């Protein structure tokens, strides 16, 4: 577990100046802010012009055009909004299976928090496991996530219980290590005109385990025990299944426009982001 969340936040604040959530691209809705919105607004960015219709704000009439042709023409400017960002963190026990993976999970979470805040987004944070609850931003900043109440479930994070806001950027941080179908997660991410980002941390013990011989396995989610012998052939088949598992996730994400990136736990954080997240559009490098 992370002992000093304050220091972690400071580190991620620096990282957020080198990389950020992809809020600069696309069009967002929300209250006034600094990010281009979907409609016209009162920013300084000229967008278009059209004939005046009653009810238009007379302050935006193009008087120079009226002087030339005697007809009222309206100048239209780009709307600037403050986008909504819903950060969903999978807090099932498998996310904290090893110290490296635990650190990487919190680094991703606080990177998303700091990046959203620096971009002036409206941020809401949800901790999801067997249940789902919103973590107030103040508690997030203090590192109080209330994890004692969270337990694992084979169905994965219960996004259907999470109140995601319409049109929000939905960032899900989860290792995706559960047997449920990907659509149980991907569809809620893009519902109600939402845009999804899926960051999947993983560690070497999962990707390249050194299993061989008799091993007494304990499932991190259910605490179920399974004593078995793992010969080299079984280990090889496991590695193939592991790769195929994430290929099954990659395909629906691609189809539904969700930026999907796996983030390794062992390298430096910024290097881990550059490896896959930057290429998939899950983050933007400045």
């Amino acid at each position, binding site marked *: 577990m992370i002992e000093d969340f304050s220091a972690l936040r400071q580190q991620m604040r620096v990282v957020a100046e080198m990389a950020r959530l992809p809020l600069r691209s696309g069009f967002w809705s929300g209250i006034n802010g600094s990010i281009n919105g979907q409609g016209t607004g009162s920013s300084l960015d000229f967008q278009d012009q059209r004939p005046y219709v009653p009810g238009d704000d007379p302050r935006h009439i193009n008087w120079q055009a009226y002087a030339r042709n005697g007809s009222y023409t309206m100048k239209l400017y780009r709307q600037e909004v403050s986008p909504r960002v819903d950060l969903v963190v999978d807090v099932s026990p498998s996310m904290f299976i090893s110290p490296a993976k635990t650190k990487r999970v919190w680094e991703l979470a606080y990177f998303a928090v700091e990046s959203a805040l620096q971009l002036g987004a409206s941020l809401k944070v949800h901790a999801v496991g067997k249940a789902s609850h919103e973590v107030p931003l103040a508690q997030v900043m203090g590192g109080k996530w209330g994890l004692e109440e969270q337990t694992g479930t084979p169905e994965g994070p219960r996004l259907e219980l999470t109140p995601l806001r319409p049109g929000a950027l939905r960032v899900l941080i989860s*290792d995706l*290590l559960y047997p449920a179908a990907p659509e149980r997660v991907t569809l809620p991410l893009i519902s109600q005109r939402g845009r999804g980002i899926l960051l999947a941390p993983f560690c070497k013990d999962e990707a390249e385990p050194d299993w061989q011989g008799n*091993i007494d396995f*304990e499932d991190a989610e259910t605490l179920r025990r399974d004593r078995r012998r793992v010969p080299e052939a*079984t280990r090889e088949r*496991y590695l193939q299944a592991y790769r195929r598992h994430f290929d099954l996730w990659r395909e629906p994400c691609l189809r539904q426009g969700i930026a999907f990136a796996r983030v390794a736990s062992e390298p430096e954080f910024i290097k881990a982001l550059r490896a896959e997240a930057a290429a998939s559009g899950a983050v933007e490098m400045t």
Partner: protein
Amino acid sequence: MPVHFANPIALWALLALPVILIIHCLQERSRRLRVSTLFLLERVAPESVSGARFERLRTSLPLWLQLLAALLIAWILSDPRWAKKDSTQTVVVILDSSASMSAFRDETRTALSRTLGHWSQNAVKTRWHLLETDSHKPTLYAGTHLDELLASLDRWQPLKGSHSNDQSYMVGRSLVKGGGGLILQVTDHKMEVPSDIALLAVGEAKDNVGFSGLTTKVEDGRLKWRVLVTNHGAAVQSRNWWLERKQEGQPAKSKLDLQPLQSVSLEGELPPEISQATLKLDADVFPLDDTLPMVRPVERTVRIDERKGSPSAERLHKMIEAVPGVVFTADHPDITLSEVGGEVTTDAIFYDSPAPEDAKLDASFVVAENHALTRDLNWMGLLTQKPTQLALVEKDTPLLWKGDAVLAFLRRTTTADAKPVQQLFLNWDLSRSNAPRLPAMLVMLQRHIDARRQTLEGERTANYETGERIALPATDKPLQITRNSKTEPFNGHAPDEAGFFEVSREGAPLVHGACYFADVREADLRECSSADTSESRRLEAVLRDTEADPLTPLWVLMVLGCLLGAWGANTKSEK
């Protein structure tokens, strides 16, 4: 360069290697893992198959480091030493020539191969000598090849009775000069040896049944024989025995049951036309006494001339009359009986002239010299007068003393024609003495007559014990002994192995004989045992001819490195 271990018991530390391997296998069985992807594993291998009780070993750095450390520790503790480049040693093996060793030929070869194999590693060069305790036997091997020494054991024929080892020890000491080697006495029982000699006893208690004696007597032309069969073992034994005669078919066998240490007498007779036969027993571990050949003895007669006329002559006549193979005649006598001072040209027995009537018996003790004629006889009861004072000359051999006067002596002299003769002087009046009734006196006379009989010319036929001395007339012509159709120079003794033989001179036979093994001390194998004192001396030899491993400090450092490395690797994996 051969390596020696000054502390070979430390090699038991190598048992740590399999222990380490077993511990690693058991560790594999108890490995426990908390995982997040069990559902993937169950998908590829739905059946949860428990492993073997001992898991196949997985190689790991700690395992190899621990194995290497155990190996190095065993190496260091065993105190390895390397032979010096110029080290040499001499090993003298003295084989017991006693007949009892023939029951342990295989054990001797095995023990020597093992013991000498160890000794061969002590030095770069070893000089081997293989001798026998019988100093008359030639050296069996001298050289630098151990395998040739072991091969030369085939020529070793232990057939002798009890004998002294001192001469062979002296030879061994002269070969191993300066103490740089080993003198190894190989025998079949524990015995005391000098401090500079190691003992290798290869025997064990074994049962043996064999012939232990023969007496023959010719009556009415029939040879009556009688033999003893003895069970030298500690258990009841059964044997078949039979008599083989020339030109006869399969002999009938008789069964003989013998209690432990029991001796049974067998008797029989041979008809006049049979001159020789062989008694046999079922073969056992000691075959020398399982065969007893015998011949019909034909002894030569000793002709004795007597000068009658005195009471002592009559007494002497009666005594000599009891000796077999004697005839009184004046025709070409071999021995003459005469009063002291008589003129004699042959071997003789002189007796003193009659003593005065008032002569008293002398109360002095009779003391016997250690001589073949008087040995092992009791002379304490001999009563005589005071002996006549006779002066001994240079070639006289005193036999009996009475006080400070010589009572009996043997004189070797020559006749006028330079013929050597032997004369027995009895320096007291036999008629006034109890000598005719004293057994020792009769035995001495018989020994003297038999000694003369041995030197008589002409053929004889007799039974001998193996290795027994055969006295023959002195001659400057070579004598041969023929046995099993093989002729060799005659060494004055009967053969060492039981069988028939013939001694001849220039083709003329002198002796037809049969010899049998009769040394019951050698046939008794109950006291045989094993012992080996050479190993304690080997350590001294190793220390002398080798030097300590110069890399020991490096091995110690490597052990520490291995242990630290294994500990570090284990700690890391636990984290």
